[in-house]
């Protein structure tokens, strides 16, 4: 596929690894923010190939993983109601709530459907005027424009039976929360490329300056990640701390203005609780008052649900990079993708699922070569 495969070139990747290793005079600790980036790093073994020169600390860039348990429970409560068609992205289905998950709700008769786009959910509402269609609007700034458009469109087309359960978070406040945390070891960041495709990178300039950390907007293919790391290491070795853009083919300085404008029209900033981190002020999005008719929390009266986290799941420590997934005592034993204790093991962007796939893959390889 054009503009994808070229960035998987193994020879170029090897050159970048050699250069990074040659340039680093000490071991640097970098954080890649986005779960998609974590998956590439773990799957390709980039962290192992850079051992000694760079440590990759995995960030909280998995919106499903940072969604608080009570939001999941709200989704389950709504999905179980008769007359509701509950729609979400595919990897939400097996994210565990306190007692259940969407897949189990479906098995017990709930109308739960996977959609690719929020516009598909809106179309369902138009085709089933007798049902209440709810879309689980989980995501970072990358997904907010799509969700904003679905709500905007619902109003334009006067669709009365469509609503969204919002769980939107934004990246820059999470980056500063990580930098402010006592014992922080992160010295530079690979910023989430597709978040920046929408938002541009202006928000990171004051962060780089205030905290003295390089921030490199980075893509998702192996060559992108390695080039991003090379740029960050060069800055660290030079004593610079600027925002640079590795993903220039997709990220423009101003982002996509029309997308940002629509998000601002439909949503406003709010305080949000991040699973494993706690509440971060002004780190999330909620529907503006004039769109309250599309707010599923209000419509279904689930706004005041509150829940305590289960002990065994160490998602919080994984999401803030304090431990690696395999350091969690439940990893691979009590907690697997088939029976997850928390979201990071089941989300396509979760760090735990990335490590689990790698472990399984390696075990399969060994089984093949064993006599």
């Amino acid at each position, binding site marked *: 596929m054009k503009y994808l495969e070229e960035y998987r070139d193994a020879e170029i990747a090897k050159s970048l690894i050699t250069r990074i290793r040659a340039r680093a005079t000490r071991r640097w600790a970098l954080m890649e923010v986005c779960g998609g980036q974590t998956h590439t790093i773990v799957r390709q073994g980039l962290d192992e190939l850079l051992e000694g020169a760079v440590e990759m600390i995995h960030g909280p860039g998995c919106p499903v993983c940072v969604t608080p348990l009570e939001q999941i429970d709200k989704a389950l409560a709504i999905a179980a109601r008769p007359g509701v068609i509950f729609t979400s992205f595919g990897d939400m289905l097996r994210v565990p709530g306190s007692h259940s998950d969407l897949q189990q709700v479906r098995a017990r008769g709930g109308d739960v459907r996977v959609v690719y786009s*929020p*516009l598909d959910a809106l179309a369902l509402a138009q085709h089933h005027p007798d049902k209440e269609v709810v879309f689980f609007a989980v995501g970072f700034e990358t997904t907010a424009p799509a969700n904003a458009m679905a709500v905007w469109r619902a109003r334009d087309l006067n669709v009365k039976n469509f609503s969204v359960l919002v769980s939107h978070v934004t990246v820059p406040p999470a980056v500063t929360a990580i930098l402010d945390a006592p014992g922080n070891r992160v010295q530079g960041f690979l910023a989430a490329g597709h978040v920046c495709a929408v938002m541009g990178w202006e928000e990171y300039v004051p962060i780089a300056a205030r905290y003295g950390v390089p921030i490199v907007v980075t893509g998702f293919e192996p060559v992108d990640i390695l080039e991003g790391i090379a740029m960050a290491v060069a800055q660290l070795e030079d004593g610079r701390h600027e925002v640079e853009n590795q993903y*220039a083919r997709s990220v423009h300085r101003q982002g996509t203005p029309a997308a940002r404008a629509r998000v601002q029209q439909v949503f406003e900033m709010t305080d949000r609780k991040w699973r494993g981190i706690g509440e971060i002020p002004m780190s999330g999005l909620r529907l503006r008052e004039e769109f309250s008719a599309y707010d599923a929390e209000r419509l279904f009266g689930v706004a005041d649900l509150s829940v305590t986290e289960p002990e065994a799941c160490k998602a919080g420590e994984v999401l803030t990079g304090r431990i690696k997934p395999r350091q969690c005592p439940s990893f691979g034993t009590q907690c697997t993708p088939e029976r997850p204790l928390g979201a990071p093991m089941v989300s396509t*962007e979760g760090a735990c699922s990335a490590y689990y796939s790698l472990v399984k893959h390696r075990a399969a390889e060994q089984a093949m070569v064993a006599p």
Partner: protein
Amino acid sequence: MCLAIPGRVLSVRDDAGLTMGVVDFGGVRRDVCLQYVADEVAVGAYVIVHVGFAISTLDEEEARRTLEVLREMHLLDELDAMTASAEPPSGDAGSGR
């Protein structure tokens, strides 16, 4: 949700006030909302698509430049490696570079 991929715009249309298009992803075609990049796209342009929406345009010139830089870097590294292995094993430590 950060997963988005580049695709090529095959056609553009208006769908009751919303700009939509058919985008090709290496042979797979999907209907995509192009509203956010409507001012910049035409048939043949590349866009980055996330959950059925074009969230930005792909700058082909920039992509070409990035790859050129990377390939040049790799070529230099190859030449370095070749030069290093081509040096005569005479014990003369300073030869070559």
